[in-house]
């Protein structure tokens, strides 16, 4: 009898033993930077006694660039010159073309990719040039070093000027000066960088190259010019960055924002999106646009033109053409969002116009332009210089538009209690003709019944207008101040 009971017990215990470790427990991991200078927590899942962290969180935490191929399940992580490639489900990891292994493979959990914790301490630490230690007992991840505060340098070439942007992790003091006529030196005090990553060959008609040096207390960035050209420098926020314009446009010395065109979406025969309660997008956005016009003209004294003042149809192209004719400094299109499906979305988002959305689109454009040139019989594939020209022509006002989009998204975030979705870029038909910084605001989802009733509420409409107004006021201040700081040697 005792024997049977004990057999029964053993069987139950066995089943329990097998079943329990299969349960993935949701836990938290504490991340401590540089001996407690900063802290963060990340989620983890425990599978069979091993901690797994979400790839998405790690990308954010360590500021990695991520590429994901849904077909092959290939993940490519980039941090400066270093590259980590792995396939989800495999424990092999390619680090800068050398194969490493983790004891547990990366895997999916509810559609999200999770990595075994040793991926951080064994693989990422080398790439990030940081020391990452995992203490399983205390469930603490210690990270030291590897957090360079001068993150990168990028540039855009325009017809008359070249803009160089230095990305910072946090605000840092700096000084820009010329020691030689064809050389601008920027000292970023307290800057730490990886000089190789920041050095760039530019070779447009104004700038030869950029070279970075790590000094004991500062990062020094040397911009070599082709000839003696004026420059101006200023800082921008979100993300923190230092901007250096070589040969800044002279006529903009006393630049002011004087005209803004506001475009209430749809109208007339085009009702826009319609909510389940019958609310029409065209009516709501017109009310918001009118309120926004009132705020801007009363408080900022700026001329505001609406693309439509009543319920009538205006073709998309005519809207931006109107803004061009009015010589507007900003074009702001106001819309209400919609989607198919049960939840039907929710929240506000701001878009800016962009042609080459993604690396893929750029690659295709590059290839296609190359083909076109070949077809014309010039037998010359598209050169780097051609591509820069192409890129430039399609990226005018990209910086300004994205700046404005970010400010509007922040402005709305302070006024609205619905979800802050994102700032995004897309190729908008309605924005593509605009010869000025332009954005499209989707203020809420009319297809979501809860947000539909909010949109009908005049108080909500007012808050939306105030959020956008605050952003425009801030943009105007930032912009005119930056333009006023010109030093033309």
């Amino acid at each position, binding site marked *: 009898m005792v024997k049977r009971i004990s057999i029964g017990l053993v069987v139950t215990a066995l089943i329990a033993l097998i079943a329990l470790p299969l349960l993935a427990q949701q836990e938290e991991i504490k991340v401590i930077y540089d001996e407690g200078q900063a802290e963060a927590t990340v989620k983890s899942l425990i599978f069979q006694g091993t901690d797994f962290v979400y790839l998405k969180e790690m990308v954010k935490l360590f500021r990695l660039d991520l590429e994901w191929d849904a077909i092959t399940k290939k993940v490519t992580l980039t941090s400066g010159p270093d590259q980590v490639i792995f396939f989800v489900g495999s424990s092999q990891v390619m680090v800068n073309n050398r194969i490493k292994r983790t004891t547990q493979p990366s895997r999916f959990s509810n559609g999200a990719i999770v990595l075994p914790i040793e991926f951080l301490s064994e693989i990422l630490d080398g790439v990030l040039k940081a020391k990452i230690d995992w203490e399983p007992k205390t469930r603490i991840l210690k990270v030291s070093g590897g957090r360079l505060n001068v993150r990168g340098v990028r540039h855009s070439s325009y017809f008359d000027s070249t803009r160089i942007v230095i990305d910072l992790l946090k605000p840092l003091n700096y000084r820009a000066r010329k020691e030689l006529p064809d050389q601008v030196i920027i000292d970023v005090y307290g800057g730490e960088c990886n000089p190789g990553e920041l050095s760039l060959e530019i070779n447009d008609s104004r700038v030869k190259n950029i070279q970075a040096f790590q000094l004991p207390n500062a990062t020094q960035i040397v911009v070599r010019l082709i000839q003696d050209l004026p420059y101006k420098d200023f800082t921008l926020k979100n993300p923190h960055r230092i901007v250096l314009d070589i040969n800044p446009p002279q006529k903009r010395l006393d630049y002011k924002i004087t005209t803004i065109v506001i475009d209430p979406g749809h109208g007339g025969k085009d009702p826009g999106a319609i909510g389940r309660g019958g609310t029409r997008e065209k009516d709501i956005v017109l009310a918001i646009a009118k309120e926004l016009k009132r705020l801007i003209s009363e408080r900022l004294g700026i001329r505001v033109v609406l693309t439509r003042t009543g319920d009538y149809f205006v073709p998309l192209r005519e809207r931006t053409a109107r803004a061009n004719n009015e010589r507007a400094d900003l074009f702001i299109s106001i819309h209400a969002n919609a*989607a198919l499906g049960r939840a039907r979305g929710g929240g506000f988002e701001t878009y800016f116009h962009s042609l080459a959305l993604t690396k893929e689109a750029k690659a295709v454009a590059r290839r296609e332009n190359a083909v076109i040139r070949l077809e014309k019989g010039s037998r010359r594939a598209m050169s780097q210089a051609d591509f820069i020209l192409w890129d430039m022509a399609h990226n005018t006002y990209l910086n300004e538009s994205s700046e404005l989009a970010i400010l509007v998204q922040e402005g709305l975030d302070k006024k609205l209690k619905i979800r802050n979705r994102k700032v995004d870029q897309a190729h908008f038909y309605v924005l593509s003709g605009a010869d000025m910084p332009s954005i499209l605001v989707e203020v809420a989802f009319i297809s979501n019944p809860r947000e539909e009733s909010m949109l009908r509420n005049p108080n909500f409409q007012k808050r939306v207008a105030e959020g956008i107004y605050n952003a425009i006021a801030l943009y105007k201040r930032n912009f005119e101040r930056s333009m006023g700081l010109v030093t033309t040697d």
Partner: protein
Amino acid sequence: MERKRILIILGVLVLLIVVIVVVLSIPFLKRKGVFYRIPFLAPEENVKLVRLYFASPDADYLRVEARRILREERITDEAKALVEELIKGPRGNLDPTIPPETQLRELYIVPEEKCVYLDFNQAFQANHPGGSAGELLTIYSLVNTLIDNLKEIERVQILVEGGTIETLAGHIDTTKSFPRNSTIVEY
């Protein structure tokens, strides 16, 4: 005898409890992703495993739903089948991206352009909910699905009733063909 019977009852009870616990924990385990299925199981000869892009419940991103469809001889038929599956909508917990009344009138492939032209009926545009998010999800669910599943295809051009349209509902430019977009995909 008596003790034996008690023991049997006890044994059966223990077994029952174990079974109940296991059964009850299945949805929980599923939620925790323990039953992670490898999507690449050897497909039968006349069946093809395809990836269909549908909208996430918050209309933020596209996500993949794997589905088995009949293998087609010709690539145009395969492309048609993919679009039909997208129109049918998701089976799992994702959201549809194309109005259900939509019909694919015709589909052409231009091999030199590596481009597939999709010609829809008026309902595709007329019944579209509108919104920038809605348009982006519709466009790229078609674009990414076709490009991911057909290695001959690099671009997708949308047509309605035989011609190009400026936009679906007033936002995204649909006059030109689209390449794949991975930034709208949630991994």
